[in-house]
């Protein structure tokens, strides 16, 4: 049982936790805003997609590095 499996598991688990929290805050604010003002739904959706990409960036960088650690490359 090498340390790289444990390392990769911790990296991906923390990344998943952080991505879940960040995305849930973001999407809940979007739903709330779209509910209050249905006419700005379209432009709010554009902003939502941009911010989803930015919020998911660092967790998924952690997942990418975790995959590299798992295969022993990093």
């Amino acid at each position, binding site marked *: 049982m090498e340390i790289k499996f444990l390392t990769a598991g911790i990296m991906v688990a923390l990344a998943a936790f952080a991505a879940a929290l960040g995305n849930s805050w973001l999407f809940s604010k979007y739903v709330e805003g779209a509910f209050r003002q249905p006419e700005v739904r379209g432009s709010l959706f554009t902003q939502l997609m941009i911010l989803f*990409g930015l919020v998911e960036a660092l967790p998924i960088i952690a997942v990418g*590095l975790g995959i590299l650690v798992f295969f022993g490359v990093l």
Partner: protein
Amino acid sequence: MELTPKVQFLGLTFDVTVMIGTLISATVVFLLSLWATRRLQMRPHGRQVVMEMLVDFCRGITRMTYDDERTAEKYLAITVTLFLFILVANELGVLLMVVADVHEPIPWLGLTEEALKEAHGVSWLKSPTADLNVTLAMAVAVALYSHYAGIRANVKNYLRHYMSPLLPIHLVEEFSKPLTHAMRLWANIFAGEILITVLLMSYPLITGAPLLVWMGFSLFVGVIQAYIFTVLANVYISQKIAH
């Protein structure tokens, strides 16, 4: 992890999957653009409509980022180029990934005996953006272009930018912005491809509906990440010309 064939030329190592993938992406974008812009008419119908929708979409990106419309038109070309190329390159891995089992070593491609024993297969075609070198090249190119655009726009403002008290933070930003710019795109596409490979390798157990769902999500993520890369490229260019 899959082994990739590599070619040595003048002391540099070239990855064959990246070369084939980039060639295919560039050719597809070129042929699509050529096909869509034959016999341009003032009232478009058919394929010209699709191309005009794409260019209008990118014009929306530039109008959102820059203050006035003249600079927005100036940077439309690089926006459309980046968006189309990254879009096709991201979707290439979902639609056309080729992994083979090579039994005899091919030394001139870098597939030696011991490397073949350790790897799970040899990949011949995957997304070019699943390779960190490709995304880093694009991000560094955008960063250098932003410096060039800043100098060309206003040399005095560009140099005054270096005499602010926040200089160490700006210097760190010069390295971290291209790095995160590249790694965001790379990690999204790479993680998606690894998961496709894992779902395909666990054949009797969980293939079928999860694979289709994940491939659909990967197509969606490819579009979103192409959009994010293009928007952020424009933001970084605008940060240098705005002072």
